[in-house]
């Protein structure tokens, strides 16, 4: 696994897309910090960019890279090496490459311009989203034989997570606003990894407002450092479950 990881990472380190991603994030982050004279305001814009862009890029890149390296994956699969080692090495390399790119493009500007808890949380959830959507992208690529369809499924998944899920949940909240459905809506929102990442940053940014809200469920759920634990658990789950499915699929897949 480590050998596959090592050489895949060497390949990814010189991948133009990965470099482009790092530069794009750097450009966006630096641009926002430059345009806004107030760094904490730039952070708020950055939150929205990260929550939309990171899942999209992780998904699409992973899917495209998986299809493009299919022949090479075949070559690896005929070597005396277990399939799970191949997949683990590739997944790990993809995650590492994207995380490093993001650390450079997003983490660095945050450390320079705004070294605080909210920025730390943004880096943390951004990293979590990279892991989650790389895992999902890999699963999609393994499940769909055609590249175009794979990318299509990826875009659909992204759209569901980034917009449709919240829209449905808010519609639910509206239509049952007279019923005590808070205990359902809040945990449901937290099930979406993008929402979870956003809530984590928001618990820092909107802390003042959050403390004005006395809802018990809310507090139980995200209270103090419990929020980070819940978030980490949710993100981990979203990483582990698709990855397990990926391993199962890859183990039986005809290459």
């Amino acid at each position, binding site marked *: 696994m480590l050998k596959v990881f090592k050489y895949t990472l060497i390949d990814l380190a010189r991948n133009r897309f990965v470099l482009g991603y790092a530069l794009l994030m750097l450009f966006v982050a630096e641009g926002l910090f430059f345009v806004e004279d107030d760094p904490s305001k730039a952070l708020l814009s950055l939150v929205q960019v990260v929550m939309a862009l990171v899942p999209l890029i992780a998904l699409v890149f992973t899917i495209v890279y998986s299809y493009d390296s299919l022949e090479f994956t075949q070559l690896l699969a005929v070597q005396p090496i277990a399939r799970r080692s191949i997949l683990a090495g590739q997944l790990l390399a993809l995650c590492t490459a994207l995380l490093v790119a993001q650390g450079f493009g997003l983490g660095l500007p945050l450390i320079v311009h705004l070294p605080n808890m909210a920025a730390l949380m943004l880096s943390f959830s951004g990293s979590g989203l990279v892991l989650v959507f790389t895992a999902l992208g890999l699963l999609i690529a393994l499940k769909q034989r055609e590249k175009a369809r794979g990318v299509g499924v990826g875009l659909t998944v992204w759209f569901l997570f980034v917009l449709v899920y919240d829209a449905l949940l808010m519609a639910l909240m509206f239509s049952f606003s007279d019923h005590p459905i808070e205990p359902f*809506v*809040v945990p449901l929102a937290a099930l979406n990894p993008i929402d979870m990442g956003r809530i984590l940053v928001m618990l820092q940014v909107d802390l*003042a*407002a959050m403390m004005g809200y006395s809802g018990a469920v809310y507090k139980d759920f995200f209270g103090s450092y419990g929020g980070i634990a819940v978030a980490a658990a949710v993100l981990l789950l979203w990483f582990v479950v698709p990855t397990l499915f990926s391993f199962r699929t890859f183990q039986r897949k005809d290459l």
Partner: protein
Amino acid sequence: MEVLAIAAPGDTIHVYGEVHEGTITIEKSVVLIGHDGAVIDGGEQGEVVLIKSNDVTIEGFTIRGSRISNLEDNAGIKASECRNTVIQDNFLDGCFFAIYLSGSKGALVEHNTVVGHNVRDDQMGNGIHLWKCNSAIIRNNTVRNHRDGIYFEFVTDSRIIDNISTGHIRYGLHFMFSHRNEYIGNLFRDNGAGVAVMYSHHMIMRHNRFEANRGASAYGLLLKEINDGEVTDNLMMDNTTGLMVDGCNRISVERNEFRNNGWALRLFANALYCAFNDNAFIANTFDLSSNGELKENVMSGNYWDRYVGYDLDHDKVGDTPHRPLGFFALLVERIPYAMVFSRSLFVSLLDRAERLLPTLTPAALQDEHPLMRQQEWVGKADKNNGNAPISVRTMNGRSNDMDHG
């Protein structure tokens, strides 16, 4: 201390490093100055220093040991029905009430450090407590960890200047039925409920900082039933609610900076003839919320960091009005737990749509002349000439050093 009995009015008594135990009652006009750590310890008997004469000065003592009581407001220094009392440079350490003035005229309370012992609510009195006083000056004191930091009831024509009031269970500063007072250049931070000004008129509030007052009913500043007031050049930062205005008339809120609050401004619709001009609203979760229309009030020339208009004629004023009351703020008023969707893509799309085509938000509530950039001088609450320079860690991690001249 026995010398007090033989002193003549007008004498000055110097006390060097002595620990006095028990209550001291001063019934003649003397100047009492402590040196080298002079201590007066009431020994939990009741009052510690009781002033019953005009023209008394207490200076330079450490005062402690007033008894906690449910029946009596025992204080570290209490003056009743006196004129021209001066209390300065003392350290009031863990008193039930620290400085208690009732019916006094022309008192000066200056350069004291007042620290309560943070115990239960009912075992804690106010730091500097004034009842039925007038023409008092409370200046350059540091007050920490009491129930109310500074409390005024039926106090008129007095000034509260350059004090630091932090970590109190209830209010950092609390006015009840107190008129024509002003407080300027103070710092109120991390108090259970912030600062409350209630049932008073002709109040001047300038150059103060209201910071980090958080909780379900915590405000930077709560104005309740206030007529004719002026809230100018203040900074409201990191509060659950920056400024709450309930039942007020003719208040002018100008040149304040609202930064990083949950709600910058909460207005009840019963406000009349209030003006909200030239303020800056930055990085608040909500800039404004209200429970109705605000017809007789004006709002103009503010800087809103959420404003997305343009300035084609380059007069630094946006060409389209700004509607500070967003769809999401209204939603959260109705369904509080909707907060979980704060800053999500869907919500920001809805908010943007609402600003373009208002259907839910009241039309009257808008700033016709929103500024494109924040004015330099807005919210500069830096006139604090308090005791020692203190560094305040803010939420966004930068430290704001206060200039204490």
